[in-house]
């Protein structure tokens, strides 16, 4: 076995330039595929960890068939107080509260900007829920208190929009009414939650007439099975509402949907990148045929002194397999570098930190693909070489 390796290796080093070019061909494809896979996995992981940070014990109810806040905002339907009461009474639900939102002109520090303003419940129960939601966490100042009047908490992106001039203690004028800023939210990475100003629900209602909630948030009791609680919520709501006029979603479903979407994008991109690998197979086949062609005499001699068809087959298959493996090793190294650079660029421009994933699964996958590409490309040339008749070959 050791001799096979030596023989294959020696023939590769004999034609250094050709081997290098063949490896380069496979390398390029491997770099593309591996960096796309690792970046895609990194994206999925970033989404997952964002959700894990917030916790999976949330159940969200939206009107119509809306599956998220954005769709709920575009829905013609809303949820009612009665729905909220029903959700609150469901077994396994710890707290629940409805929110409302609307774009309002906000005046502060000499600027007037359109900002999404949210009305959130600030009774004892509502506060208990808000404090548990990490995308509402406070970085500076404090959270609402039940007895607060005309107060606002501002998202981190809104502070930036107002040239960093908003601070705790400042006064905002929303639709002509004064609100005192008591807290600034921590940056959560979610553009919706970072880009809002929240005020008390009653005060929101006094600014604008909006019937019903576009979304109801709720937390389940710790230790309960979230999906079965969601099922119970659904059954209860079905009794008081028309079927299909609401949608119960768990945080896990939301996360899964985003992961799935990212997965589909990744599959499409990887499939396009795989075209390069296909092309590199044709290059490797060419190299292997040339290699066989050059060594016809050698093969003849080896056979004459007792090498079997199998031996010849393995020597050539190993040769192409090694080409693939080398390409895989270098491809992974360069792909890792490349993916890290791209990740830095993405993090810089999209404000979304992504770290490419290079775990043993990705590494093994890369090596596996490249070895298979090498062996697959070498299969026919190796078969051809093994079936050569020594007499004919020697005569050439």
């Amino acid at each position: 076995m050791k001799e096979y390796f030596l023989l294959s290796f020696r023939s590769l080093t004999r034609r250094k330039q050709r081997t290098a070019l063949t490896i380069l061909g496979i390398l390029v494809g491997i770099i593309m595929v591996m960096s796309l896979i690792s970046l895609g996995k990194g994206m999925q992981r970033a989404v997952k960890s964002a959700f894990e940070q917030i916790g999976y014990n949330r159940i969200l109810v939206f009107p119509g068939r809306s599956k998220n806040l954005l769709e709920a905002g575009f829905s013609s339907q809303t949820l009612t107080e009665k729905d909220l009461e029903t959700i609150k009474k469901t077994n396994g639900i710890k707290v629940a509260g409805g929110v409302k939102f609307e774009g309002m002109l906000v005046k502060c520090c000499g600027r007037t900007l359109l900002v999404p303003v949210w009305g959130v419940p600030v009774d004892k129960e509502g506060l208990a829920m808000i404090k548990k939601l990490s995308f509402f966490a406070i970085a500076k100042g404090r959270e609402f208190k039940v007895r607060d009047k005309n107060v606002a908490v501002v998202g981190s992106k809104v502070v930036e929009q107002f040239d960093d001039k908003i601070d705790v203690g400042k006064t905002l004028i929303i639709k002509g009414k004064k609100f005192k800023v008591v807290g600034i939210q921590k940056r959560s990475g979610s553009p919706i939650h970072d880009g809002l100003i929240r005020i008390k629900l009653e005060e929101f209602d006094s600014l604008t007439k909006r019937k019903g909630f576009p979304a109801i948030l709720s937390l389940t009791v710790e230790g309960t099975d979230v999906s079965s609680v969601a099922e119970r919520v659904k059954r209860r709501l079905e009794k008081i509402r028309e079927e299909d006029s609401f949608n119960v979603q768990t945080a896990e479903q939301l996360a899964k949907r985003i992961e799935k979407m990212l997965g589909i994008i990744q599959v499409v991109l990887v499939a396009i990148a795989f075209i390069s690998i296909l092309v590199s197979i044709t290059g490797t086949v060419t190299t292997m045929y040339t290699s066989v062609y050059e060594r016809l005499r050698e093969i003849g001699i080896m056979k004459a002194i007792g090498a079997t068809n199998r031996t010849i087959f393995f020597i050539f298959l190993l040769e192409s397999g090694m080409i693939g493996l080398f390409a895989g090793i270098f491809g992974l190294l360069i792909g890792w570098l490349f993916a890290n650079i791209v990740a830095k660029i993405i993090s810089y421009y999209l404000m979304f930190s992504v770290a490419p994933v290079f775990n043993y699964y990705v590494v093994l996958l890369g090596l596996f693909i490249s070895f298979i590409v090498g062996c697959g490309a070498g299969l026919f040339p190796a078969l051809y070489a093994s079936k050569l008749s020594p007499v004919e070959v020697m005569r050439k």
Partner: protein
Amino acid sequence: MIGLAIKEITHRKVRSWMTVIGIVIGVSAIVSLFLLGDGLTRSIQEQFSAVGTDKIFVLPGSSFLGMFFHELTQEDLETLSSLDGLKKVSGVYSKQATIEWHDNKEQVHVSGLKKKFNALEFGYGVGLHKGRYLKEDKEAIIGYELWSGNLFQAPLKLGDEIKINQKKFKVVGLMDRIGNKQDDSQVMISLEAMWELTGRKDRYTLFVAQVKKPDELNLMVDKIKKALRKKHGVKEGEEDFTVQTTEDLMESFLKVFNIVKYFVLGIAGISILVGCIGIMNVMYSSILERRREIGIMRSIGCTRKKILTLFLIESGLFGLFGGIIGAGLGTALAKLFELSAKTGAFGALKIYINPLFILFSIGGSFLVSSLAGLLPAIKATKIEISEAIRWE
């Protein structure tokens, strides 16, 4: 000289075919993706140009998120109506709603419009296929997807009764096909009915205005912006609304689309690079094998320049053959996709086969692959006659 180059290629058949196949794969991938992207761009442009270039659109908010949280009001509409230079100003209020017919339920876009609206005037680019416009609040006009039977198991007919958010509406008109699934699956009802349905009176999500003189388009955009800024008390650059012409809308749409298009083409383009590496490799081997031949050719009077040209043409021929087959295959693939898209989401997709592009891609493939042969060919010219003939 070309005859000689062709002879050399067929000499090592397997190797040549493999190299050509590599180029074929790369070229067909790029050609089909390009034609697809081009076809999509054209169908988008066509849909927008059908809308007419004399229209101005006003949207709430200044970004996508703004649009989601904000709405326009009756006062805004009145502000626009009072401006000179605008022929017609109409408001639309649209939201997602559940429509129900027999046992089918779907979530679609429902738009509230004034009763005697003219679809063309609202920037849909198409008119009524059958039936009439709205006369009462309990009537609806439906999009192509609904009456063609694509969305529901059985197609809807004039006179059928559907439920929108559990309220009954009678179908009185069918819209012509616009060409994209989202616009084609909408339902139109009167503004009053829409306000009633959502409980939000005098609200709009879009204004469409037509200018009196087309050459005053940009002037009117500025006029509208100024009037609304004054009304809302906001400064320039901090608007809570967006005013766009048809061209602006198209451009912002194509901008995103083009980024995706070029990204995908770039990834596919890497395969051509890989193909070229293959050509380079084959050329090196081929020159190594034909040292003797080159030596003899040189000794009977072939100049270095001729050797260089010969090998450049030989490597270019890989690209030429690969390019011709690849362009054919790529076009066929794109056409195949067009056929399958006809019934799907992109009914308006048409693949335009531009002969100039096909020629360009074949020529490009010839050029790139002869470039790939440059280094090997230079090596061939450096072979010394005496040494080459001695070599076996």
